[in-house]
C-alpha cells in the first residue's frame, strides 16, 4: 500500500512500513547516518545521527527505526535535530585519530562528509581527545583494524554475518573500551576473508584495511 508523508514540507509517496531513513535518502533529502544498512533488519540504531522530528512525538527519533505511515509529518532540519547530530558527530570525532592524509579513506570518508554537512570541525572544540590502545589490531592474517578510526557502526560485522552466517568479527569489551575485534583462531578460519573482504568495503571510514603482500 502506498502512503503519503510530508518531509520538510515536501509530500512524498512511499510503501507503508518502509524505512523512513531510506525513504528520505531515496528522495534526495540528506539525513546524516552511519550505521544503517538497507535491508538488514533490525537496525542497530547505534550511531545516533539519523534523528528527525515527527509531529506528534515530543522528542527527536532515529529515522532508521521508524516505519513510515500515512500522514506522517517529518522535519529533518530542526534545531533540536541538528544539535543532537552535531553532538553525536563531535563525540565520534573526539575518539578519532584525525590524520586524514595518512588514511586510505581520505576523500571518501563518511566522517568528512558529515562534518561538512553539519558544519562541524574535525577537531571537536571543548572535548578532550581520547584514543585507545593499541592503535592497530593486526591479529587477523588479512585484515587490519584501526580502533581509533572505527565509529562502531557495526556495518562490518552485520554484513559479514549476513553473508556467511557467522563472522570472525565481533564486538569486544564494554563501555568506552568497546572495540571491533577480528578473531581468527587458525589461518584456515580466516581463509574465506581473503576472497570476500565485504567488511572492508562497507566500512564508512578507514578502520578496516586489507593487508597486501
Amino acid at each position: 500500500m502506498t502512503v503519503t508523508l510530508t518531509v520538510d514540507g515536501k509530500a512524498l509517496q512511499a510503501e507503508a512500513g518502509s524505512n523512513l531513513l531510506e525513504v528520505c535518502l531515496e528522495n534526495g533529502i540528506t539525513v546524516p547516518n552511519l550505521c544503517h544498512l538497507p535491508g538488514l533488519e533490525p537496525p542497530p540504531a547505534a550511531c545516533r545521527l539519523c534523528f528527525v522530528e515527527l509531529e506528534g512525538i515530543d522528542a527527536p527519533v532515529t529515522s532508521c527505526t521508524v516505519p513510515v505511515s500515512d500522514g506522517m509529518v517529518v522535519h529533518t532540519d530542526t534545531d533540536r535535530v541538528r544539535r543532537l547530530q552535531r553532538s553525536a558527530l563531535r563525540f565520534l570525532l573526539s575518539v578519532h585519530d584525525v590524520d586524514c592524509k595518512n588514511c586510505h579513506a581520505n576523500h571518501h570518508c563518511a566522517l568528512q562528509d558529515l562534518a561538512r554537512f553539519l558544519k562541524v570541525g574535525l577537531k571537536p572544540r571543548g572535548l578532550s581527545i581520547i584514543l585507545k590502545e593499541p592503535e592497530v589490531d593486526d591479529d587477523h592474517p588479512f585484515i587490519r583494524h584501526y580502533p581509533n578510526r572505527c565509529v562502531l557502526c557495526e556495518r562490518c560485522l552485520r554484513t559479514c554475518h549476513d553473508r556467511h552466517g557467522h563472522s570472525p568479527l565481533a564486538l569486544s569489551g564494554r563501555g568506552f573500551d568497546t572495540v571491533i575485534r577480528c578473531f581468527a583462531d587458525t589461518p584456515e578460519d580466516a581463509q574465506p576473508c581473503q576472497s570476500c573482504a565485504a567488511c572492508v568495503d562497507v566500512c564508512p571510514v578507514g578502520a578496516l584495511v586489507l593487508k597486501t603482500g
Partner: protein
Amino acid sequence: MDPNETPQCRRNLEALQAKAAEKRREKEAAPVPVIHIGSATCGIAAGALDTRQAFQEALAERGIEARIHTVGCVGHCYAEPVVIIDHPDSGFPPIFYHEVTPGKARMLVKLFLEQGDPRFEHIYGATIENDMIPWVQEFPRFSMEHRLVMDRCGRIDPEDIFEYLDDGGYAALAAALETEPSDIVAEIGAAGLRGRGGAGFPTAKKWSFAAATDGEKFVICNADEGDPGAYMDRTILESNPHQVLEGLAICAYAVGASRAMVYVRAEYPLAVRIVTRAIEQARSEGILGESVLGSGFRLDMEVFQGSGAFVCGEETALIRSMEGFRGMPVHRPPYPVEAGLFGRPTVINNVKTLASVPPILENGAEAYRSVGTADSPGTAIFSVVGDVVHPGLVEIPMGTTLRTLIYDVCGGIAKKKSFRAVQIGGPSGGCLPESFLDTPIDFDSLIEAGAMMGSGGMVVMSEDSCVVNVCRYFLEFTQKESCGRCTFCRIGTRHMLEILNRLTCGEAVEEDLERLENLAHDIREGSLCGLGKTAPNPVLTSLRYFREEYEAHVREGRCPGMMCRPLIAYYIELDKCARGCDACVGCCPTDAVFTTSTRKKGIDLELCVKCGECMVACPPEYDAVRKISPAHLAPVVERSPKRDKEAKDKA
C-alpha cells in the same frame, strides 16, 4: 463439572497442605526451643554461618535439645547476624537478638537455653506482644513497615516448599487456575499494580498485550539486579523464592505461556541455588510441569544465569543475552510483548512485581489498593544504605515521605550528623536535597522531583559526603557498564566522567559546569536505551539542587563534604593535642605524623596521603585532628629537626 464438587486444583493443593501440616507436626512433635537464624547472603556476610556452627557446637557440648531453623533475611542489615530464639519453657516470648556473634551464641545456649536467663542486655525485642520485653512492633523500624511482599521473608525456610505451603503459599495459584485468565489480568489491573523494575509500567497492560497474541510465548522474571547498593531482589529470592515462582506461574497462566524463566545473575550463587531448588521442589510436588496442580495447564520453568552485566537488566539486552548474543539493547518498538525471546511475545517482570501478584489475588484488588496511593498502590521496597542509623531493606506503603523513611523507619542520620542529600533509584536516579524530604515516595512524585523509583536503591548522605563525588561514582559505574553500542552513551558519558574527575581533583574550570550540563542533556535525549537516557540523572539533579557545591569545587577548590581528597588537608590542632600522646603516630601509613618542638604532633602535608587514619586514632577526649578544605587553609606546623633526630635515633 458438578458445582458442589471441590475443583481438582484446590483438592491437589489441599493434599499438599495436609502433607505440609503433617511435616510441621513431625518437626514440632518434640517441644524443644527453636533457634531461627537469618542466613541469606547478607546474614552470611555478617557471619551467620559461624554463628550457626557455634550454636550447634554449644548445643552438642551441653547436651541441649534445640532445633535450628534456617530462614532468609528479615531486612535488618544493621543487626545481622539476626537470631530469634523461641524457648517457650523459659516463660519468655520469642526473642529477637541482634549481632549474634559465635561468642554470643555460645553464651545464649548456656545462659538462656540451659539456665533460662535471656540476658536482657543483649535483647533487641520480642517478636510478639507481652509484658516482659518490649515488642519489636513498638519500634518504628518495625511498626512503620508494611510487609506485603516480604511478609514471609525471615520467617520461613526458603529451601523447604512445605513451609511455604503451610503458610498459605500456592493458594493464589490454585485459585487462579480455576479462573479465566482474562479475569486474573482484570484483577491485577483493578489492583493497579505497577512494575517494580523501575519504570512503573502497569503490569496488567503488559499482560493483556501478551494475552492477546497467539502461539508460543514466554514469561521471564527479571532478577538481574545490577544497581550498586540494591539487593532487594536477591533477598526476596533467597528468603522466599516460592512467592516469586507462584507469581511467575500465575503470570504464565494469565498470558497463556507454557515456558517461564528466572533470569538471575551468576554473581548471586545462593539465589541461583535456592531458586533452582525451589523449582525442582515445585515440579516434584506437581506445582510445575505437565499439569500444574492437576489443572491441565502445562508450565516448564528454569533458571537462566546471566553474566552479570548491569545492562542485561534492560529487557531487550536481557533477551539478547538469553538468545546467546552479546547483551546489547535494541531499539523498541517492537517491545518484548510483541517480539521478545526468539521473536515470540515475552512478558518480562521484576521480582517484586511478581511477588506482589499472589497477595493481590489472595486478598483482592481492593485490599491492595488500600495501601499506597491512588496512582501507585501497594508497597515500595527499598534498600536504604549510607549514613542512616538502621540501614537495610524496608517495605513501606507507597506515599510514605522520604522524611519518614529516613528519620523514622531508618532511625535518622548516623553519628548525629546532619542530612545532605538522598540519591534515589541508583545510577539512573536523582539526588535530592533537604527541601524535598517531604516528597512522597511513589512513581510519579519521584519523577516529578527529578529522581526515580528505579529498582529501589537509596543512598542517604550526611554532611560528610560530597554530592559531586557520589555522582562521579555513579557515572563511573554507568560509563563502565554501558554496552558500548551507541555514540552518546559510549563516548558522551566518558566525557562527563572526565569533567567530574576534574571537579573532584580541583582542576575544573568555570566552563566545565555548562559543558557538563550540555553533555548530560544530549546524552539523555540521544541515547538508545534506558541506561544512557538515565545515566545523566544524578548529575542533572545535583547540578539543579546542589549547584553551589559544584561551584565550590571549581571556584574555591573546596569540597563542602570534605570527601574529595585532593581538596582537603588534615592537621592537628595544637591546643587540643595532648603532650606525650602518640596514638596517631603508629597508625599513619606514610609516617607523616611528627613530633613538634613542643612535644605535640604535627602532620607533614607533603607525606600525608589523606587516609584519615589519624583522625580515627586520636582519642575522643582530645579530638585534635581536623579536616579542612580547601587544602591550603591547613596551618603549617614546622618540623623540629631536633625531634626528628631523636625519633630517628630511637628507631
